[in-house]
């Protein structure tokens, strides 16, 4: 990238980037503290509670791992569609549809492979929901930004409808614990097993998520498929010229990202979020937060792992806020402030680099491509 060979400007940039990141995080946290203080809350206690709830108290880091897994899976899906130049921001809806499908499969079928079938059901549900947006994009040129977002709302209402009919999802057990409309509970043998270490327990889906992160990372950087997606994302015209089937590759990337969100929903269900039932509001912002994980990790699959852990920690930590008397929703503010702050440093560095070294001459997209094609 750097034209003048020596490593020192690059290192300077790296150091500056790190410094800017530290500064940005500090500003975001300071603003959060200020906000809590202004509204009359004890900001010191809030941060202590967040740390207590996420790692320090016994058994909490296992919960944090469990919360992080679906965030990571959603983020991986988001990376795939972003790589193809598509803006899928409907993970929240795809996750809900995936979880609802998984619930239906798990409660209606029996046999030794119900768990696998349920997870597959989640994958299919999410993919189909994203597929609607893909269809509208490539058939009718509807921007996927709008359609995926509208589908989030339709998904939450639609899965809510499924919970009003016993032949769909509603639990028909007359001895239900309460009158809230929920699905039947998953049987014990269709649940994801837990790993227990040092008094902490987390489901196998955590391992699955990390494995998926590695697989996605390798496939995106090392496979033909990954290369095609990258070209498609950078320049669709070039992609077409080198023989990438634009519609097929784009639509499958969008559906795959939906499939990841659906899988995340299915693992949440089978790992005991909401007590192994599908409930109204099941997705509970995991789709949005998973998407933010991908944004903060700047679309690198492996970088998503630590970011997902931090976001998962904010989720578990927020459970301990009740004692401080500060609303849980402060966590939403802290998280999005962090995200906003973390977006800025790379942008500043990129702009300065552009100022220091003149940009490359505009590359004509036609000639070099013809050469490649030959």
């Amino acid at each position, binding site marked *: 990238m750097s034209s003048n060979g020596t490593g020192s400007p690059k290192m300077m940039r790296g150091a500056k980037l790190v410094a800017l990141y530290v500064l940005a995080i500090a500003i975001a946290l300071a603003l959060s503290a200020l906000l809590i203080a202004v*509204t009359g809350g004890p900001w010191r206690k809030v941060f202590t509670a967040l740390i207590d709830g996420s790692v320090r108290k016994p058994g909490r880091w296992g919960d944090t791992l469990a919360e992080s897994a679906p965030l990571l899976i959603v983020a991986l899906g988001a990376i795939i569609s972003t790589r193809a130049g598509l803006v899928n921001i409907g993970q929240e809806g795809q996750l809900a549809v995936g979880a609802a499908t998984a619930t239906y499969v798990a409660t209606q079928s029996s046999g030794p492979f119900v768990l696998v079938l349920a997870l597959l059901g989640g994958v299919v549900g999410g993919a189909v929901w994203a597929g609607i947006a893909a269809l509208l994009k490539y058939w009718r*040129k509807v921007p996927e*930004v*709008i359609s995926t977002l509208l589908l989030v709302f339709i998904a939450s*209402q639609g899965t809510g409808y499924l919970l009003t009919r016993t032949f769909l999802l509603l639990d028909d057990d007359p001895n239900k614990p309460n009158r809230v409309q929920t699905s039947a509970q998953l049987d014990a043998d269709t649940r994801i097993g837990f790993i227990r270490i040092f008094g902490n327990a987390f489901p196998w889906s955590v391992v699955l998520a990390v494995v998926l992160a590695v697989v996605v990372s390798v496939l995106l950087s090392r496979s033909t498929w990954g290369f095609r997606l990258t070209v498609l994302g950078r320049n669709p015209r070039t992609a077409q010229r080198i023989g990438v089937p634009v519609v097929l590759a784009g639509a499958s990337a969008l559906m795959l990202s939906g499939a990841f969100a659906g899988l995340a929903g299915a693992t949440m269900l089978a790992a005991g979020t909401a007590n192994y039932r599908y409930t109204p509001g099941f997705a509970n912002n995991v789709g949005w937060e998973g998407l933010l994980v991908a944004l903060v990790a700047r679309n690198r699959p492996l970088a998503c792992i630590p970011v997902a852990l931090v976001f998962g920690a904010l989720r578990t930590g927020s459970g301990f806020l009740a004692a401080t008397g500060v*609303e849980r929703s402060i966590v939403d503010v802290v998280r*999005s402030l962090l995200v906003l702050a973390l*977006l800025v440093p790379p942008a500043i560095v990129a*702009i300065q680099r552009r100022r220091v070294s*003149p940009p490359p001459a505009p590359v004509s997209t036609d000639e070099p491509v013809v050469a490649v094609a030959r």
Partner: protein
Amino acid sequence: MIGMIGMMGVVLASAASAVGDVLTSEAMYQSAMRFAIVLGFAAVGEWIAERAGTLNISIEAMMIGGAYSSAVAWGAFDNVPIALAIGVVAGVVVSLVQAHLSHQLSIDQFVVGLTLNLFVLGLALFLDSRWEAVTSVVKPTKVPLLHDIPLVGEALFGQPWPMYLIVPIVPLAWWLVFRTRWGLEIRSVGDNPQSADVSGIHVNRRRREAIMVAGACAGLGGGVLVLGQISIAGYEAGHVGLKGIIAIAAVIFGGWTLRGTLIGCVLFGYFFALQQTLPVLGYRINAQLAASLPYIVALLVTAVFATRTRQPRALAQPFVRGLT
């Protein structure tokens, strides 16, 4: 085009079984008009931002900011103009963040927009738990004689006065975009930023200004939403409920023309009103279907109209000199 829209409206209306009752219901017209006007503020702003080349999804955040701030300001000052003005300020503040992150630091506009939507929603939710915004509703202003017209009289001439702010805003927006130097530059920046740049227009500055105009309009829309709606007192989280996104759908529906955008607002307003009015008229309609109807219609309508119209050529494409 108009014929198409008319046909579309007829088809959609006949989908509901209660066409006759709905069309003769005064409350229906009144409610639809109110939703249409609230959407209209945001849609006019969004239309300007999109003509300048930004697909501004944080219009939602700007509306939420305007709605919450207006509600709090009402509670504090008990004065409608001040409350609306503070709503506008809040919308502009959100738009400043969006504009500078996406069109100065060149961060992806959707990334910024999405994060802002979540941020402002969370912030309003949090602040609302501390300073609960209790408002009452502005009394309808009845234009003498005219509001006695059967059916549509109440809808057109019996609204709370902030609703009528849409009347000067629409021609003002048209004049701004089509009859001023600034508007010409806005349109050129949205269609061909490279040429605009070469002819000496500061592309990203114009785009930032367009986003700020959108922020002011959407903030006002949010304020009108909380102060003008009947049967809702105070700000509630989820109150804005993706109306900003529906406003974007209205712009797409309208083919990036002002007139079409406003027709889109009326159409979507009708479906929002249907959800409120059908139960009152005694029809039982599935609650989930009724709630998602405007969103389903928005999806279908954009699917029909997105291909047939000419969008600003550089819509949603960032401009960095020398790179594009």
